């Protein structure tokens, strides 16, 4: 697993609201019980961790549907981080 993946999993694990010992790349965000404020906090934590900006408006974006799974969040972050380096 990449460093980004383990960091993302660590951040999402802190926000989950269901009893589950580990967070996997295949887990769905809605199944982890993330609510809208959790999503806003998760985005903030991701921005802080990777020093990136994630354009996100809670009125028009819904990470629980736009990102089905934890793995999709990881790929999105990997892309933003790669663009930042290039």
């Amino acid at each position: 697993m990449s460093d980004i993946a383990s960091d993302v999993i660590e951040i999402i694990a802190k926000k989950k609201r269901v009893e589950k010992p580990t967070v996997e790349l295949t887990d769905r965000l809605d199944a982890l019980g993330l609510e809208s404020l959790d999503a806003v906090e998760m985005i903030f934590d991701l921005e802080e961790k990777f020093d990136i900006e994630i354009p996100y408006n809670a009125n028009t974006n819904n990470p629980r549907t736009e990102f089905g799974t934890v793995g999709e969040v990881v790929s999105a972050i990997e892309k933003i981080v790669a663009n930042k380096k290039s």
Partner: protein
Amino acid sequence: MNRVVVTGLGTISPLGHTTASYWDSVKQGISGIGPITLVSTPEQLTQKVAAEVKNFDPLRHFEERELSTLDRISQFAVVAAREAIIQAGITFDIPLSLRTATIIGTGVGGQTTLDESFRRLYVEKKSRVFPLTIPKVMVNAPASQISMFCGLRGPAFAVASACASATHAIGLAFQMLRSGAVDCAVAGGAEACITFGTLRGWEAMRVMAPDTVRPFSKDRKGMVLGEGAAMLILEPLERARARGATILGEIVGFGMGADAADLTAPDKDGMARAMENALADAKLAPSDIQYVNAHGTGTAANDQTETQALHQVFGAHAGKLGVSSTKSMIGHALGAAGALELVATLMSIRESVMPPTIGYLGRDPACDLDYVPNEARVANIDAALSNSFAFGGLNAVLAVKKFT
């Protein structure tokens, strides 16, 4: 139990510095939203627009030595209170001043002073801040300054319930007048929250619209911050009549409550309970209401939830209501919002004109009521509600009636 009437209105808003100019623009559906000018480094902000009070020159209203004691929020508060008192034609002699309440809502207090002071410390690395920083920042400063400038010696304090502050303040004044605890009240709300730090805080919530606010509309993208103040003079009917005052409207009910649920997510049942409480307090049936001045922030969640709450309270009558959001024109002035919106509600009853919800692009299936889209409407209004629902789940609703 006294009947409680409104005999004076004072307003300072993104659409004008008097009640007349404010209402005239609201009626015409003019937007007060524009580029942010109050922040010295707007390029560092993601948020580019707000509803600022434009061309406000404090020296037109205050002497320079007075200004060192007044944050922008208190300047707004005192200017609006003076206008309301002049319109009411009241002179506060000592006996009346002792029996006059000053109850002022604010969400965040003297933010301009706080922002400037902390910038000095953290950015400019200065070792001290201005001597009156604390009494300018404190949330009771607007109430205290109105009391001092206008000579009001009765119960005076601030009410803080974020976006419902002014509505709670006016509701409390209404209850004190109805019970006879006081003989007059200056009540309302003030806010001056367009500062770098506050805007950054709102950006972090991820609820701000990048262009403009479009309450209840499809493709709405969130809220826009506003600022300003509105003050009302409230009196028992008998007293107002005895002195021959012009009566601008009657407050007939106040409902409040708390969701005890989520910190920021709106709650349909909490909203509905506050409206039901206001109707019950006013002894009005849902079918007696023609107009609701909605909380209508323009966020996806608020507008959908408020619509559901209106359906719950009004049933089949919901479809007959005119429901509009003044925030579509003046943004969200947090602790002042409820007072600015009550002024619009009282004027709409008085002039039989429902103000519009501007910026409306078309129907969102989740918002299926009549939002008076884009253009004001001539309509007789006998009774109306003004809704305020705050972060923290604190809800307040006022019921007002045409005075007859």
